[in-house]
């Protein structure tokens, strides 16, 4: 698992992936997104190199683009998707602790987060925190709603709905 972070600019993905391609690596699942002013990459890479060798392969791109690189050997593989069956949307006036409270209540109910995206919107004087979670739960939506019921009073709007994946 390769993690790269640096100040956002055009060409980061192209330069990094070209270096990997030339070194004979294959890419798997990846998440690449601009967060704040930074561009972040988390990417599954398979190749003949050791982690040290991979660091060398990427060194020119890392240096030129001012990236920070982290490599974790992982045992994971492709085709291990879990399909989410529950979506949780949270909005509220921004304050510390929203994520901790909501995900804490969900974790206690056995909810497994598969994807979480969050953002701060609104104007800088009145920021609004927005979070969208997709995950898997063996419990009903009603049970999860019960689990977070106490948090509504904290000024958050929490919407939990089933995700019915259509196969056609």
């Amino acid at each position, binding site marked *: 698992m390769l993690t790269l972070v640096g100040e956002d600019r055009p060409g980061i993905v192209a330069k990094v992936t070209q270096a990997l391609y030339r070194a004979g690596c294959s890419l798997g699942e990846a998440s690449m997104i601009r967060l704040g002013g930074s561009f972040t990459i988390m990417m599954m890479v398979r190749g003949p190199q050791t982690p040290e060798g991979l660091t060398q392969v990427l060194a020119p791109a890392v240096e030129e683009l001012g990236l920070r690189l982290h490599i974790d050997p992982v045992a994971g593989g492709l085709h291990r*998707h879990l399909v989410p069956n529950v979506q949780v949307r949270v909005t509220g006036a921004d304050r510390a602790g929203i994520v901790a409270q909501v995900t804490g209540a969900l974790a206690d109910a056995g909810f497994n987060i598969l994807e979480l*995206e969050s953002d701060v919107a609104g104007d800088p004087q009145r920021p609004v925190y927005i979070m*969208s979670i*997709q995950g898997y739960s063996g419990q009903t939506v009603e049970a999860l709603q019960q689990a977070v019921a106490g948090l509504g009073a904290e000024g958050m709007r929490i*919407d939990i709905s089933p995700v019915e994946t*259509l196969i056609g």
Partner: protein
Amino acid sequence: MAVLDILTLPDERLRQVSAPVTRFDAALRDFVADLEATRRAGPAAVGIAAPQVGRFERIIIVDVSGKKRVANHGYLVLVNPEITHWEGFEMGREGCLSVPDFTGNVIRATRIRLAARDPQGAELQFEMEGFEARAVQHEMDHLDGLLFVDRVVSRRTDLFQRKVYQKGGEPR
């Protein structure tokens, strides 16, 4: 009845535009039976389209009646379907027999009006919404050589709850 082979990505034939059905005969009805057997043989599909089994005619099957709490018209065979009206849009997660091991979020119309023919050639009209309307739109895309992967969107485009409009266009 026979279970037919399903074409999967990157098979270029899935990109073909299918032709309208002109003969509503026993051969068509036999094919529909095979298509339904194929849908049922796979992993819990709520619909299937003829081009997914390599027959490039405008025929789809949709049946969402197995889903809990979903408004539906039961088992539907729709020949030469046309959407005559649509309103609203919402995001939902989709997968496809022709795209194994991948699901993604797609925006579809919430409510549609639909004209089609049945396997005998009789005219059909439906108003449908939600999951059933989504299934019809997903299957109809196959008839035009489109797959849901052509329409996948990031959840970031839909972080806000949509406004819900009542009939007449007034925000609730």
